[in-house]
């Protein structure tokens, strides 16, 4: 039990006064001294360590020493101390119980009804939730506007097959694409694709006996690459993480392959993954070649790093 302010102090022989102040150790948050004052003390208030206390009750503290010995205790030097309102000591109130009573404030009459209080609390929550709720759906759609744009399936002219000199050799076709984003003025970006004239064996590898179908988001068929058309166009982006790859002759393998410089994925002329971290073969694009040998493609981009091929542009 902690000594209480204003409780009487008794020495071994007689009552000497009362506790006028209490001193707390700021680190341990425990009462370290009591300050005894009053007529029996005579003169200055004396600072008495708690070790001198023999017993403590609510209204009385019994000291071991005799009243005559009281003078040995040092007088209080008030200027060496500050009140607990002048300094911030964490959680001090939790550890301090030196007041002998409570200070109370009456609850207003209107607040005494618990039912009323809970009703208005719940109603406030209900109204609060409803007030801004109307914005939730419009805001979501507002923010999502550019996220799932419909696909542009326009045919773009990218080059001519007269650039291809031999079978099964990758040839890069560079082209410019017109882009209009939201409110920005129309801009041109540089893009590229790889085309090769496939021999029947490579063509078989690419198509695996089936025509290749390209669909849009609703599942509607946009184009079919017929498996007997010998020209194959690959998207210029590596399906691993989207880097631009190259056609290289590898002396060690003695043949030419597609090589991606970023993470060294290697593809054979049919696009099949020979080595490296690529999760799927090179992505084929819709192609049509007109009578004059002009190559047209539908520009598509696919999600990088996944085994399944998902169109994103």
């Amino acid at each position: 039990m902690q000594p209480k302010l204003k409780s009487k102090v008794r020495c071994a022989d007689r009552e000497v006064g009362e506790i006028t102040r209490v001193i707390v150790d700021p680190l341990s948050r425990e009462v370290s001294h009591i300050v005894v004052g009053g007529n029996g003390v005579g003169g200055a208030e004396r600072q008495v360590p708690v070790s001198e206390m023999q017993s403590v009750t609510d209204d009385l503290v019994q000291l071991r020493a005799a009243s005559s010995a009281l003078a040995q205790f040092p007088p209080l030097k008030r200027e060496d101390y500050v009140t607990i309102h002048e300094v911030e000591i964490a959680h001090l109130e939790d550890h301090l119980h030196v007041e002998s009573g409570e200070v109370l404030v009456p609850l207003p009459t209107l607040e005494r009804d618990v039912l009323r209080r809970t009703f208005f609390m719940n109603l406030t929550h209900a109204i609060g939730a409803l007030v801004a709720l109307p914005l939730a759906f419009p805001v979501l759609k507002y923010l999502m506007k550019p996220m799932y744009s419909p696909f542009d399936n326009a045919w773009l002219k990218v080059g001519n097959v007269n650039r291809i000199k031999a079978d099964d050799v990758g040839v890069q076709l560079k082209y410019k694409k017109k882009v209009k984003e939201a409110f920005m003025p129309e801009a041109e970006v540089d893009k590229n694709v790889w085309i090769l004239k496939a021999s029947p064996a490579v063509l078989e590898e690419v198509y695996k006996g089936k025509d290749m179908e390209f669909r849009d988001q609703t599942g509607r068929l946009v184009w079919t690459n017929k498996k007997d058309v010998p020209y194959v166009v690959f998207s210029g982006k590596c399906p691993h993480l989207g880097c631009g790859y190259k056609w290289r002759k590898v002396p060690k393998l003695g043949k030419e392959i597609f090589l991606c410089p970023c993470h060294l994925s290697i593809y054979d002329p049919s696009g099949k993954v020979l080595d490296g971290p690529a999760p799927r073969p090179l992505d084929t694009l819709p192609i049509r070649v007109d009578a004059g040998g002009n190559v047209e493609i539908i520009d598509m981009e696919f999600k990088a790093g996944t085994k399944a091929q998902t169109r994103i542009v």
Partner: protein
Amino acid sequence: MTDQPTQMSPVKLGLAVAWPAFWTGMPIKIVLALLLLAMGQHPWEFPGLAFLLLLSIPVDIWAVGLSGRTVLLERLGVEPPASLGLTLWWQGAALYATYGSLACFLERQTIAGSKAVVARILDLELLKTIPIAERISIELTAWGSIAAVVLLALALGGLFLFGKLVQRQADAASPAAASYEARVYQWDLMRVPADQPLMLTVFTAVGVSMVLMLWAFMPVTTPHPHESYKQDEKKAAPVLKPTEALQKAERVLTQAETSVQALEEKARKNKGKAPEKKAAAKPKKA
């Protein structure tokens, strides 16, 4: 003196009931008007107005009942009679229909009349030279103050009559025995429903369904587009049918061939007449 019920002048009484009743119903009516607007209806035109007025009836009955009971208890110290809201509502509606329309008419006449008089005064030679900005403000202040004073008088008259209606209800009621504090507690507690969970569930459900209706009805793109804004037209991918293209090409070629043949025939016919013409008439290869 606080425990003694107060006697109130009719105007004060009328205001004490009408003012809170008006504002109590307002949030609900604003929400209803908002729903109408989301559906593309104007709440100040029929049919939206009819819908709003119809739904306002129960709201107003409840609101005027609530304010009436509060005032009767707290200020006049009487027990509110049953269905106070309904009684005050239909009496108030009758008052609004009769006195209200008369007051509207009088106010409109006052405005028109004072505007005309003020305009005539300012047209006098003496005042004709006042510049336009000053003239506008002076005119407005002049007829505005007259109209405002008349409006105030008419409003006070209306409140007076309404206050008398409320007083009649209070006179017929039995006095409340409780102290002021207890009476305040009583009207405060009147606002707490008997079945809280039910009330709260219904309230939340109605609120949520109103929000859902709002989302369903509100237009996604602006209802007032700018006249010169061009909507971003996405060009549909031209659907190409290869066989059709080939057939078309064939048709063009055959047409070209026939016209070439025809011209050659013509040239042969003119062979004797103009050899140079023949050379000039040689058509270019398609």
